[in-house]
């Protein structure tokens, strides 16, 4: 029973009478160490006390019986157990028992010491006429208790009704109080509390009773406060959450990033492990309690769950759970309870306890709140982040907090040394050793280990082994040999028991140099561990933007799913890494790799769900900007708005929802949508796609990044018109007209009609690397003079004459153009097609052959979707094209943005001959 009952025994009638009228007895009792019981104030009937009444309350410890047995001065047997006093009766009637309310130890001037027990009702039954002469000890622990108290102790339902009115008026008058700063919210609620308390105390019965009983008064205060919390909770929590939104988001970010923390990492006592699920369940309910009282009760229940004695265990003192054990446990529970607004709840508890007067600053409730606060504070400090062992940083933490005092006697090792020191107890040939050095970013050592894996064993067999003779096969030598052969130095492909490769580890700990090194050594970028996570997933979930971008740029699949269906975007959105979210979106936008912002994981959650749930305002807004749909329901039929507990986020979402409904998307949004639909178009559609010259967006994104040969854009509208005419002429195969526009002589004639005599070339017709640009320069000069067009001129979409010719299979024009210096690797703007891509798409075998024969054409260039010429050829299923490309040495297993190789396309199309060709190409290449 926990009542927190308190009274001043000096004012207790019984005690005063005892001290006044039985001084001798009192002195004897204190001298002998007898226990004095005092019935609490109000429990005694109001007649004069007899000697027997006093005697029955003096307990004499027994010499023979256990400590808990006493004999009262009026010769009764008394037992005390679990704060209950039981008095045996003389006759056969049932033993009588009552509670001990508290124990007070008295120290007097003359160094006497005695103990007094305050008991709930007199020990002598005769002293107790009615069952209850007053209100008894009421304890309020739940909202229901509070309502009961206000109901039963007052003279009717008036009090509750009036309070309801006050609350309703408050809600009406303070519409929008949730937008105010915390102090204002507090002041207003506090005024409401005063009003409600006045209402309660205006009630005659309640006033009378509380006047008589301070304990009851305190309970009434708590009850009023609790009732009020319940009434205004929905705006209270909303308002507080809005105030703490940023802190909460920061905390969530930390919690999300340490979510794989284990109990042992925190040093939780191992015998408490099995209490965790229950305790977690209790604590996670804290947001369902609408009152401070309820929330405090929730923490209390959590602690009770932690200390629950397991069956068959001796709850001896050695096993009690002290503060040392409690705090790590609380930290763990805070991390695991998956509550999104801890700080808001904590703030509610700290700020809105109106009934707690100054003296209550030290009470049990504030201890409970403090325990939670300490745990949250510990998480918030971020010490748990960083290296996998949280212990690795605590020295740093203490040095930070004490940093100002230089004469502290703790030896503080600088953080860097600790952090970057790899564990030295690992076998250098083990994979753990390699991973440890990757973790700390020790590049040299990683290089050494990886090199070893390749070279060492063989070399040692050759030279270093001291065999009896080179071909010896005695036991000893064989033993030596087998040892060398069995060396298991990890390689770039080795994985540990979780399926982690070196690249996973490097991405997890954000070591960009090592990621770079591994990628340079051709580590598999899309390898997944047992949870289905690729290095990209880890880089995203830990917010390592550099590693993420390195992976993305080396062709890692940016929307692959792990076993829970999460794409990297989900992970960085859920863990609050705004930088990574942006990196992914920008990467996708600029490189043209498709990224679905509305992808759902296995729960049906989109990245927007995650960001909204954990309150990352910045991420929510950027996702919305990039076309994330705020209306998507997950499998529980909830949209991101349902998860948004914080006002800023929910406002962003509702704005997005309404603007979507109104159909007016932001310009950027519109752009995204177009891009998206375009990238949704399947490859097959490309065949049908006619060149649409009016399409003018995304023109600027590529020229810089693509190739060494950008096409030349026309300077004025006159030229633009001419370019259009030129391209049309080529498309229809009008060679002469094309030549006219380009200022070339007709087919069959020598291209160098202009004066090139002053140009030094290998020989007059040379088109080698050195000579070629010169002819072009000369030609370009002469061409402009004649107001003709450059051979590499392009239209607004970046199509050059060579593109059009290749697409239409105009072999003659192509030869002319190439001879005139057209760049074979030039790309279109929008999709990054080279002439070869177009030739393959349109199955122009002859055109493709001409292009490959130039010797300058790069067969392996990929367009913006990552498709190489071979992809296009396979997709069209043209065996001749494939054969040509394979023969010319095109790489057969390039992957496109969807992760497909050419052979995958071919398999989809069931073109057996193509598949066979590709296989031949592959094997021949290996040989």
């Amino acid at each position, binding site marked *: 029973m926990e009542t927190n009952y308190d009274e001043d025994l000096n004012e207790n009638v019984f005690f005063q009478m005892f001290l006044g009228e039985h001084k001798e007895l009192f002195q004897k009792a204190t001298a002998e160490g007898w226990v004095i019981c005092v019935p609490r104030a109000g429990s*005694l009937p109001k007649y004069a006390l007899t000697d027997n009444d006093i005697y029955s309350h003096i307990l004499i410890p027994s010499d023979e019986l256990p400590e808990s047995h006493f004999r009262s001065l009026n010769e009764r047997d008394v037992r005390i157990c679990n704060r209950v006093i039981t008095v045996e009766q003389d006759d056969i009637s049932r033993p009588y028992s009552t509670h001990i309310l508290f124990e007070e130890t008295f120290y007097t001037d003359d160094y006497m010491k005695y103990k007094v027990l305050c008991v709930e009702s007199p020990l002598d039954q005769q002293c107790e006429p009615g069952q209850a002469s007053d209100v008894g000890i009421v304890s309020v622990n739940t909202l229901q208790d509070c309502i009961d108290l206000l109901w039963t102790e007052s003279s009717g339902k008036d009090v509750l009704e009036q309070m309801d009115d006050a609350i309703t008026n408050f809600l009406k008058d303070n519409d929008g109080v949730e937008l105010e700063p915390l102090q204002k919210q507090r002041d207003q609620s506090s005024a409401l509390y005063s009003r409600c308390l006045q209402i309660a105390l205006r009630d005659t019965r309640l006033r009378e009773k509380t006047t008589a009983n301070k304990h009851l008064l305190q309970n009434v205060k708590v009850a009023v406060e609790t009732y009020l919390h319940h009434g205004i909770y929905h705006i209270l929590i909303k308002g507080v959450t809005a105030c703490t939104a940023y802190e909460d988001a920061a905390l969530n970010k930390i919690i999300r990033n340490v979510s794989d923390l284990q109990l042992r990492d925190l040093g939780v006592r191992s015998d408490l492990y099995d209490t965790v699920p229950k305790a977690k369940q209790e604590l996670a309910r804290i947001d369902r309690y609408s009152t401070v009282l309820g929330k405090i009760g929730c923490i209390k229940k959590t602690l009770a769950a932690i200390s629950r004695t397991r069956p068959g265990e001796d709850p001896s*003192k050695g096993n009690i759970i002290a*503060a040392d054990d409690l705090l790590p446990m609380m930290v763990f529970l805070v991390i695991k309870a998956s509550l999104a607004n801890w700080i808001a709840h904590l703030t509610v508890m700290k700020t809105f306890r109106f009934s707690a007067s100054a003296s209550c600053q030290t009470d049990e409730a504030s201890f409970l709140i403090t325990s939670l606060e300490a745990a949250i504070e510990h998480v918030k400090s971020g010490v748990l982040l960083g290296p996998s062992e949280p*212990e690795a940083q605590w020295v740093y933490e203490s040095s930070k907090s004490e940093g100002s005092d230089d004469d502290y006697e703790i030896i503080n090792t600088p953080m860097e040394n600790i952090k970057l020191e790899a564990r030295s107890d690992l076998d250098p040939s083990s994979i753990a050793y390699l991973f440890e050095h990757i973790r700390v970013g020790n590049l040299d050592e990683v290089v050494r280990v990886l090199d070893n894996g390749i070279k060492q064993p063989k070399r040692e067999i050759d030279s270093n082994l001291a065999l009896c003779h080179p071909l010896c096969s005695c036991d000893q030598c064989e033993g030596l040999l087998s040892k060398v052969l069995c060396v298991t130095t990890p390689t770039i492909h080795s994985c540990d028991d979780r399926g982690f490769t070196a690249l996973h580890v490097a991405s997890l700990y954000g070591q960009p140099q090592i990621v770079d090194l591994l990628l340079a050594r051709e580590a598999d970028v899309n390898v997944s561990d047992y949870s289905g996570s690729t290095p990209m997933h880890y880089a995203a979930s830990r917010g390592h933007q550099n590693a993420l971008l390195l992976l993305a740029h080396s062709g890692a699949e940016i929307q692959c799913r792990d076993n829970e269906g999460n794409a990297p975007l989900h992970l960085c959105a859920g863990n609050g890494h705004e930088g990574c979210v942006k990196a992914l979106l920008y990467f996708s936008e600029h490189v043209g790799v498709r990224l679905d912002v509305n992808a759902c994981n296995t729960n049906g959650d989109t990245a927007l769900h995650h960001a909204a749930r954990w309150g990352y305002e910045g991420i929510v807004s950027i996702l919305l900007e990039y076309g994330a749909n705020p209306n998507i329901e997950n499998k529980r039929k909830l949209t991101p708005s349902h998860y948004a507990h914080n006002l800023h986020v929910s406002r962003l979402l509702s704005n997005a929802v309404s603007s979507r409904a109104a159909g007016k998307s932001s310009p950027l949004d519109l752009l995204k949508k177009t891009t998206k639909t375009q990238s949704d178009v399947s490859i097959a559609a490309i065949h049908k796609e006619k060149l649409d010259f009016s399409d003018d967006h995304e023109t600027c994104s590529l020229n810089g990044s693509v190739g060494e040969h950008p096409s030349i854009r026309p300077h004025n509208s006159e030229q633009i018109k001419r370019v259009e005419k030129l391209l049309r002429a080529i498309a229809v195969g009008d060679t002469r007209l094309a030549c006219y526009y380009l200022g070339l002589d007709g087919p069959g004639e020598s291209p160098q009609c202009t004066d090139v005599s002053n140009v030094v070339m290998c020989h007059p017709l040379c088109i080698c690397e050195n000579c070629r640009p010169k002819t072009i320069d000369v030609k370009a000069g002469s061409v402009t003079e004649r107001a003709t067009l450059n051979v590499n001129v392009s239209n607004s979409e970046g199509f050059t004459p060579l593109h059009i010719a290749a697409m239409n299979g105009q072999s003659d024009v192509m030869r002319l153009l190439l001879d005139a210096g057209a760049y074979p690797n030039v790309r279109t703007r929008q999709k990054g097609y080279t002439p070869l891509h177009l030739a393959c798409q349109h199955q122009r075998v002859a055109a493709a052959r001409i292009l490959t024969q130039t010797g300058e054409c790069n067969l392996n260039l990929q367009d913006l979707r990552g498709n190489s010429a071979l992809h296009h050829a396979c997709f069209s299923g043209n065996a001749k094209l494939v054969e040509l490309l394979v023969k010319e040495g095109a790489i057969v297993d390039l992957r496109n943005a969807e992760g497909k190789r050419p052979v995958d396309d071919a398999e989809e199309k069931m073109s057996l001959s193509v598949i066979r060709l590709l296989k031949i190409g592959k094997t021949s290449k290996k040989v």
Partner: protein
Amino acid sequence: MSNSQGSYNFKVVLLGEGCVGKTSLVLRYVEDKFNDKHITTLQASFLNKKLNINGKRVNLSIWDTAGQERFHALGPIYYRMSNGAILVYDITDEDTFKKVKNWVKELKKMLGSEVCLTIAGNKEDLSKDRNVSIEEAQRYADSVGAKHFLTSAKLNQGIEEMFVELSQRMMEHHAEVELAQAQSTLGRAGSMRRNVMVVEDDMMVPPDNSVKGACCGGYRVASS
């Protein structure tokens, strides 16, 4: 802090490294031989003890803290608003005494002279392995204005004296503060909570004025 009836509520925080036996110390002090079964988590880290020293009531709230070094930074959350601090070290372990010195510095810095300090050398039963000399500890305690006690949770030595002495000092200190700000009846804690509007009625009625006649049943008589 004293309330209207002249009784004090004091918060006492226990600080010290993990292994020094803070918890057993305090458990021994509030040991309740009438209740050996139920020591809950809460009771082991938050303890209440009612004292009556020369007619003055003192309600001690004793807060145990986590001793692990990695939680050091959380100290202020626990010791803020405390009236007294007991800094516990293990007499067989010199490091724990150094730790106590650090705590003293920190407390002095954060709470100034408002907190009464007691330094407790625990595990006196292992005095044959003593590594912290009594003189040194005593000298240090004197130099920082703290009291030094040697205690043994195992043998129940020196603990009660320590708490009673600390309570007396906190009462004296409180009286001084009260004298200093005689104009205001509010103590430190009170002044910090001035923004709370608490309806404090004058209810100084003798407690034996028991309420007569109850109606409509439904009493929630507290039960265990």
